[in-house]
């Protein structure tokens, strides 16, 4: 397939690996921020082919994984209401809440539907004026333009029965939080190419400068990741700390200005809790006052729930790269993709699921 196959060429991958081996003279620790990148790195075994001292730690870039348990419980409470058609991306369905998950609710008769795009949810609201259609708006900056457009469209069509449950997180504040951690290990970042396709990369420039870390905007195919790693290592070896763009075929410095404008109109920045990590200032999105009436949390007044994580799950350490899935006592035994105890085992972008599907043993 064009623009995919070329970036999976094994001969070119070999060359890039050789070049990385020649370039790296000291041990370095890099973090890939995005779960899609983690998936490629683990599935292709890229981390095992790197020089011994060059370590990849897997970042918190799995939106499903960092959605707080409280919010999953709210989704479950809303989805259980008889007047509601609850819509979501497929990978949210098996994320365990405190007592159950969306898939189990559906099996018990709740109207839970998987949609491909939030506009599908808007269409459902048009088709079912007698029902309340709620979309679980989960994601990083990549899905924010889609969710913003869904709200704008519902507004334009005058749909009183559409709302979204907002679970949006932002990448740069999470990177800053990781860099501020006292036991910080990461020395360079591969930034998520598609987040930057929307937002551009100017937000990363002050981070690279202030913390003296190279940041390389990187794509998702094996050659992209290898080239991104090489660019980061070259910077580290030379003592540089700049923002560079490996993914020039899809990312521009200013991102997509129309998409950014829609996000700015529909959402405002707020503090946000990350599952397993805790609250990070200014790291999430909420609806602006103009569109507050589309907020499912207020429409259905879901609060006062008590959320409880599974005691065995060390998702917080996994999400910050402090420990690996294979360090978890439940990994591969009590916790598998069929019976996930924590969110990182659910989504294909989750580190635990990536390890499990690649057959990594504890």
């Amino acid at each position, binding site marked *: 397939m064009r623009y995919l196959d070329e970036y999976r060429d094994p001969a*070119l991958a070999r*060359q890039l690996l050789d070049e990385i081996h020649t370039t790296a003279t000291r041990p370095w620790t890099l973090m890939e921020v995005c779960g899609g990148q983690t998936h490629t790195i683990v599935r292709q075994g890229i981390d095992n082919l790197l020089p011994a001292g060059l370590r990849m730690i897997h970042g918190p*870039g799995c939106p499903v994984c960092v959605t707080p348990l409280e919010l999953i419980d709210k989704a479950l409470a809303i989805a259980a209401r008889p007047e509601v058609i609850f819509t979501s991306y497929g990978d949210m369905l098996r994320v365990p809440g405190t007592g159950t998950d969306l898939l189990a609710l559906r099996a018990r008769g709740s109207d839970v539907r998987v949609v491909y795009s939030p506009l*599908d949810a808007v269409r459902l609201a048009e088709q079912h004026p007698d029902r309340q259609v709620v979309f679980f708006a989960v994601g990083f900056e990549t*899905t924010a333009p889609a969710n913003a457009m869904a709200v704008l469209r519902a507004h334009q069509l005058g749909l009183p029965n559409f709302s979204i449950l907002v679970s949006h997180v932002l990448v740069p504040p999470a990177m800053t939080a990781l860099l501020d951690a006292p036991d910080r290990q990461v020395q360079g970042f591969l930034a998520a190419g598609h987040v930057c396709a929307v937002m551009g990369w100017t937000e990363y420039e002050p981070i690279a400068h202030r913390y003296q870390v190279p940041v390389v905007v990187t794509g998702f195919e094996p050659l992209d990741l290898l080239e991104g790693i090489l660019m980061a290592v070259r910077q580290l070896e030379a003592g540089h700390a700049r923002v560079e763009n490996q993914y020039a075929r899809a990312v521009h410095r200013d991102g*997509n200005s*129309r998409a950014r404008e*829609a996000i700015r109109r529909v959402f405002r920045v707020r503090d946000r809790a990350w599952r397993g990590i805790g609250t990070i200032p200014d790291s999430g999105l909420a609806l602006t006052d103009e569109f507050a009436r589309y907020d499912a949390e207020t429409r259905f007044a879901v609060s006062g729930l008590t959320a409880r994580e599974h005691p065995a799950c060390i998702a917080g350490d996994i999400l910050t790269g402090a420990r690996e899935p294979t360090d978890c006592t439940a990994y591969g035994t009590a916790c598998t993709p069929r019976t996930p105890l924590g969110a990182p085992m659910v989504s294909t972008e989750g580190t635990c699921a990536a390890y499990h599907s690649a057959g990594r043993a504890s």
Partner: protein
Amino acid sequence: MCLGIPGRIVATVDVAGLLMGTVDFDGLTREVCLAYLPDARVGEYVIVHVGFAISMVDEAEAHRTLEMLRSMGTSLEAEL
């Protein structure tokens, strides 16, 4: 859900004021919102996320990157 993939625009259409298009992903076609890339034309490649085209694939840049990687191979061989 964050996996964006490249596809080729095969048709565009205005749906009650919203620019939509049909995008071909290697034989599989999908309806995609083009509102964020109103200048995209039929035949061009876009990166699609959750039903939205968020970025054009710059063909010249794509070639340049691949050429650069290939030439790195030749210079390595020359050194050996």
